[in-house]
């Protein structure tokens, strides 16, 4: 350290009081009971990211010294609070303290001896979870979005999403959820890939014709993102397996083609309290909503019973513009990510419809039915009927 540095330190010491780790610990212990917003002491780690990742004091916030002037007012808006700064050995935090004084923080304190002495004193510290280099690169555009960030990305990596069907809606939804780093994707589908699927079911390809769709989707996802664990179910959802299968998942993406499955899923999801992201398409139009049990309506609030076979028009070979399930499936993926991260306003109690020919989105408010047999006041979702497949001609 040169003479000029020593002079800076001397000046800083005159302005910034120092507490040793024992004093800091004691002060933190005293405010332990207070709610986070009411706490009078804020602990700020001013070291570099790489040092923070090796371990830090629990409850500290990280503002590297290089960004101190730019970020501290956002991190600690109340300048009357006691701000205890620490670095590795107590030098950088002292200089950071002098900067805070200049910025109007009345009670900036530097922890002498720094994190090194804190650790040597046997005081608690935590090692944050870190991304490996490949993940930091892969998810860099998520990390730049404050609403996602590193914590959000970890949340996605820890999340489990079940897709009902790897078809028109499931293909784009699964593809993008995998790209986004949703850590576990379950796919239930007992169908095989056909050439007529390839006009819209982009997760499959010509080489996979004849393969199970769930397996084909797994191959595509594994080639795209090795972080994702894919669990396949080569079966149809029915009353014997629905509770077991959905139990493991955080969100269910419903892209099924028939009424019995939609009702079966609805009732089971209410019993298991799982949100369902619901989508459907027909020719040039699609619709979606989020059924979040007890927060918004469920499928039976909207339609207490399925239509009789003669009036189940969507079962006919109706046809669909190939890009349309792409749009609706991706809106489902978007809603899924919002629900997983707890951000924005998911489409709970709102039905969004898209008319491709008109180039128009519109929205209808949906209401919970207090007498709903599945989620109303006196509901017994466990006793509701299941339905036979009303489709004379399966829609494929």
């Amino acid at each position, binding site marked *: 350290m040169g003479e000029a540095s020593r002079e800076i330190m001397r000046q800083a010491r005159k302005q910034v009081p120092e507490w040793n780790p024992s004093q800091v610990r004691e002060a933190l212990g005293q405010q332990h009971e207070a709610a986070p917003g009411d706490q009078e002491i804020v602990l700020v780690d001013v070291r570099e990211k790489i040092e923070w990742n090796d371990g830090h004091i629990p409850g500290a916030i990280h503002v590297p010294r290089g960004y101190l002037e730019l970020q501290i007012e956002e991190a600690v808006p109340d300048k009357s609070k006691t701000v205890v700064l620490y670095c590795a050995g107590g030098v950088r935090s002292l200089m950071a303290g002098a900067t805070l004084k200049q910025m109007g923080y009345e009670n900036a304190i530097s922890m002498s001896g720094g994190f090194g002495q804190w650790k040597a004193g046997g005081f608690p510290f935590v090692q944050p979870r870190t991304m490996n280099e490949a993940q930091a690169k892969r998810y860099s555009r998520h990390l730049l979005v404050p609403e996602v960030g590193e914590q959000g990305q970890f949340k996605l990596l820890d999340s489990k999403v079940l897709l009902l069907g790897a*078809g028109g809606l499931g293909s784009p939804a699964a593809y993008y959820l995998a790209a986004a780093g949703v850590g576990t994707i379950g796919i239930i589908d007992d169908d095989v890939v056909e050439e007529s699927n390839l006009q819209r079911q982009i997760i499959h390809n010509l080489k996979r014709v004849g393969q199970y769709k769930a397996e084909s989707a797994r191959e595509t996802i594994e080639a795209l993102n090795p972080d994702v664990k894919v669990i396949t179910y080569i079966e149809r959802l029915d009353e014997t397996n629905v509770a077991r299968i959905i139990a493991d998942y955080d969100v269910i993406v419903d892209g099924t083609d028939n009424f019995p499955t939609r009702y079966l899923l609805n009732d089971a999801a209410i019993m298991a309290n799982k949100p369902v992201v619901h989508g459907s398409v027909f020719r040039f139009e699609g619709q979606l909503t989020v059924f979040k049990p007890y927060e918004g309506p469920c499928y039976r609030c909207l339609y207490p*019973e399925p239509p009789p076979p003669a009036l189940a028009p969507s079962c006919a070979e109706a046809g669909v513009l190939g890009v349309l399930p792409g749009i609706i499936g991706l809106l489902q993926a978007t809603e899924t990510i919002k629900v997983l991260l707890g951000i924005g306003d998911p489409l709970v109690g709102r039905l969004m419809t898209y008319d491709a020919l008109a180039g128009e989105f519109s929205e209808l408010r949906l*209401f919970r039915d207090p007498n709903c047999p599945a989620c109303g006041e006196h509901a017994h979702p466990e006793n509701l009927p299941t339905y036979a497949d009303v489709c004379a001609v399966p829609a494929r």
Partner: protein
Amino acid sequence: MATVRLAPVLRASAGGSKQVSAEGSNLAEVLNDLYARFPALKEQIQPDEQLSRFINVYVNDQDVRFLQGLETRVGPGDTVILLPAMAGGEL
């Protein structure tokens, strides 16, 4: 005249129209005017006295089950939306 918007699955029963006009001061009258011109719609929307349980009817974006049902007032500038249950996903 109120505007009635038909979900895609109903359009075949209304000569392919996406939107039609209908006369009436409440929902029951508007629908009756519609059935007079497109009888095939009646079976899907209102097979007997009550509205079918697998179709939702909105007046100006509000579900009529939470308004006054068939008695819901419909003004000349209002929009009635007919939205049947759509399985319509696609495995």
